């Protein structure tokens, strides 16, 4: 943020003059060289652990996956690679299953992210009021986030069971037709999106809440004096004030949606890896896993992984342009 510009060099240590030029004159030159080295190198040594870890666990897998994606590699013999160039990528382009997975990732992503963030916003707004038992409620909204994906999904699988599940039981009570939440495309995607939404709404709500509490109270007071309703206060003051936070949650949720894996895998049970019998809820993450493990085609799986990364970068770039346009707008 522009307002937190750091005062230049004020915090930095004073210039090194302790072993002074006079004292150094009699000492061997290597000593002062050592000292200079210490000054120059130490900061790097101090931050090295992070970069080493990043290189080993972040950069290396990234580069290696990139290398694998250009080869034909069997999972069982990862040391034997046959050069394929961009063949794995062009083959992806021509594979229906890839496009299907991409489409599913987008639809499940939209189905989960949009309601999730809207509900989080409303929830945060409510929690921002002086409610009784506010602390307890704030802990409660975070509880789903603390639940393991596996546990939550297994419960939802039971709830959505087409024959004996609670959801269909309630729907039939309302006179709605029997829905096959496992086999049909939209119902199964909605069911999975529900799990994601359930899990992440509270988390996002807390982030919004933190941002809302930083909005000056006098803005609301002034608005109230001018006769603005609570809804107007929400749309005119709250939302614009926390816009950077909203943008942040959109980005994080989008990344999460792109990498969606555990929920559909467990939701599908025995046909989880292929995302249902007709791949009706196979996401990119699942497709990558199916290629890499059951099919043992590590090279093609790596190509999917890199494609996912490129997609995220693309989304990031769009977001950046969008954000810049919005920053410029009020001035222009």
């Amino acid at each position: 943020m522009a307002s937190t510009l750091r005062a230049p060099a004020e915090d930095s240590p004073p210039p090194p003059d302790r072993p002074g030029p006079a004292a150094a004159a009699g000492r061997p030159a290597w000593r002062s060289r050592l000292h200079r080295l210490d000054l120059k190198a130490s900061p790097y040594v101090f931050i090295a652990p992070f970069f080493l870890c990043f290189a080993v666990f972040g950069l290396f897998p990234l580069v290696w996956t990139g290398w694998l994606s250009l080869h034909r590699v069997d999972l069982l013999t990862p040391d034997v690679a046959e050069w394929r160039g961009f063949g794995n990528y062009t083959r992806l382009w021509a594979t229906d299953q890839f496009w299907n997975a991409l489409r599913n990732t987008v639809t499940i992503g939209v189905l989960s992210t949009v309601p999730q963030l809207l509900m989080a916003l409303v929830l945060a707004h409510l929690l921002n009021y002086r409610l009784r038992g506010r602390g307890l409620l704030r802990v409660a909204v975070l509880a789903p986030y603390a639940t393991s994906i596996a546990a939550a999904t297994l419960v939802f699988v039971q709830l959505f069971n087409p024959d004996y599940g609670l959801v269909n039981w309630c729907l039939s009570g309302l006179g709605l037709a029997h829905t096959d939440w496992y086999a049909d495309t939209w119902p199964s995607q909605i069911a999975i999106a529900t799990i994601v939404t359930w899990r992440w709404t509270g988390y996002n709500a807390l982030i919004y809440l933190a941002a809302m509490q930083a909005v000056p109270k006098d803005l609301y007071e002034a608005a109230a004096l001018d006769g603005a309703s609570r809804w107007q206060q929400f749309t005119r003051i709250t939302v614009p004030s926390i816009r950077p936070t909203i943008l942040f949650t959109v980005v994080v949720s989008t990344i999460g949606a792109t990498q969606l894996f555990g929920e559909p895998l467990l939701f599908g049970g025995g046909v989880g890896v292929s995302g249902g019998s007709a791949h009706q809820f196979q996401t990119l993450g699942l497709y990558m896993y199916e290629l890499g493990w059951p099919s043992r085609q590590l090279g093609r799986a790596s190509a999917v992984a890199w494609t996912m990364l490129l997609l995220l970068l693309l989304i990031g770039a769009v977001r950046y342009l969008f954000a810049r346009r919005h920053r410029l707008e009020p001035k222009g």
Partner: protein
Amino acid sequence: MRTTSRPRRATAPAAAALLCSALLLTACSSGGPQSAGSAGPGSAQVTLTVGDFGTFGYKEAGLYDEYMAAHPNITIKYETVQDGQKYWDALTTHLASGSGLSDIQAVEVGYIAQAAGTLGDKFTDLSKADGVKADAWLPWKSKQATTAKGALIGLGTDIGPMAVCYRKDLFEQAGLPSDREAVGRLWAGDWSKFVDAGKQYQSKAPAGTFFTDSASGLFNAALSAEAQQYSDASGKLVYRDSPGVKKAWDIAVSASQAKISAGLRQFQDNWNTAFTNAQFATVVCPSWMTGIISKYSGDSGKGKWDIAQAPVASNWGGAFLTVPKAGKHTAEAAALAAWLTAPEQQAKVFTKVGNLPSTTAGLQLPAVQGARLDYFGSTPTGQIFATTAGNIKPAPIGEQDGTVKTIITDNGILDIEQHGTDPAKAWQTVTKLIDDKVNG
């Protein structure tokens, strides 16, 4: 409510398996105080791990305890995965990395060709292990687990002679005979007659019930009766033009289109539940299926199931025990595997969970021939399956059989059943998926 108690019961074994694997981990990492103090190699404390899938019956028959009692220096831990496909996917990964393997790993017949082929070097040759006589098994059984170099990498556990299990009460309500001889005559000779009988059932079916559980099960059964399946004699994948696959596919499709199948996926939760709720009248029934039926049909189904001869004698399934080379105690593991697959132990497993012996001696044992499974009342189970076992004509197998089977049943037939997809289109999808998977 009965139905809601089912899933909870199903999670108990899962939780137990989790706990076991957790124990396994701690056991491995701590090294164990006993091993530190012991002396010579003969008396050293050894912990052997066994990894398998579905129901192998060793624990149920008390064989682990029996072996540990006879060999005080050996402790056996086991880990069971319910889904065979997931088990195999994990096993191949473990084999590739050489870690995470159990001392003994079970391999299903659909994948044994791959284990004995591409993966052959990763397993110990058991033909010379203590207590192993290679000719103890049915000849075709050991041949399936023998590599090109002649190494025997797997010891046969069970075979799956085919029969049909049916519910007498539902058959009677639908006006069909319920005597096992008469029922067998309904479809004797050809699986397509089984579909015809299904249509007859369905026309007078008790409300909410189907003739059979799944078209995929029927596909596997019909295919098992064919001389040529997915691969030719040289092990080459020929599923696309195989008359056997074509016939089995057509039978499964006709069953699905005649709506005589409940459209379930076998070995999945709602399939298990459907047993409890008596949603289908028949299930194709290799011997190992009897254990599953008694487990999931529960008390309410006891005495209501009977077993009739299948249209054609055939084999579906069965498995092997292998000893990966990466294990620390391959000699001890081989001895345990040999003991577990010996005729006497196979007979004990059969009487407990219904997995039929794969050794010639085991099949002849009076305990097997005269066996009646408690759950099936007076049905002469042992005799039915042992008779079929003698008539099995084995078909050639290939490395990709398991993969092809999974795609045909899970992405082809199940798709037709669940979404009403046009069979021609489903077959096209299947060939595309298989090509994509096989041609890495």
